[in-house]
């Protein structure tokens, strides 16, 4: 019996979409207003989905406080109220929300979570969201 539990978190960060390998014109062409040299920011909603069996004694998939603590330490403390472009995680990639989603999934894959990491989803705005499950198929 496999259940999927999703917890939703919020962090706020600034970024600028800019690839130094492209010309200034190409950057403006590619990224539009997201290329503004002064940057801009978002409230990112991160959904972390974990999966597995229900423990009969507790009725729970995992300890939520434990999950919250790991996500706070590994993701929220790292990205909240930061300029993503300045962070080592984006030293070689543009901090699009695609790349941010991949980073979050990879960071959480490397640490011990209280249940199996299934996938992550990030809403950049109410209109844009991105999902990443690594090598496994995304369960919908």
């Amino acid at each position: 019996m496999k259940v999927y539990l999703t917890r939703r978190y919020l962090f706020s960060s600034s970024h600028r979409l800019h690839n130094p390998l492209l010309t200034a014109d190409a950057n403006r062409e590619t990224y539009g207003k997201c290329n503004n040299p002064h940057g801009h920011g978002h409230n990112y909603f991160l959904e972390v989905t974990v999966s597995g069996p229900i423990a009969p004694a507790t009725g729970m998939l995992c300890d939520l406080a434990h999950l919250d603590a790991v996500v706070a330490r590994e993701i929220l403390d790292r990205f909240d109220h930061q300029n993503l472009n300045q962070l080592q995680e984006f030293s070689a990639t543009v901090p699009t929300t695609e790349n941010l989603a991949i980073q979050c999934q990879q960071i959480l894959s490397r640490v011990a979570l209280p249940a199996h990491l299934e996938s992550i989803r990030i809403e950049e705005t109410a209109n844009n969201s991105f999902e990443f499950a690594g090598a496994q198929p995304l369960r919908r």
Partner: protein
Amino acid sequence: MIYLTRKAEFSASHYYHNPQWNPEENLRVFGKCANLNGHGHNYTLEVTVAGEVDAVTGFVIDLKLLKDVLTRQVLDDFDHRNLNKEVSEFTAQVPTTENIAVAIWKRLATSLAPVQLHRVRLYEQPDLFVDYYGE
């Protein structure tokens, strides 16, 4: 195959308690959810069914039928109830969101023919939900 999702809400109280544990162990594992006087949530239930579109009606399922099944099988028993004391599934198991989602699946799975139940998604609050696919 097309997927249709119907949303419904119910409000219920519950508490987390394993009778095989002493009070200290219940408090350690379940925290404030172990308060035996209970607490409550506004649950949002999303039921997704999968099937083919009927050539005559253009429906995958008659929404009125789906609503009636949800009301009769789930909402009538769960809404404005104490899940621990009034819902049969939870006399022997803890009414966590995980277990409630599975219980709802079992109540609905055989009631929706010819469409298949695809997913039960249950929100305990806007930042926490459980999905169950009957696996």
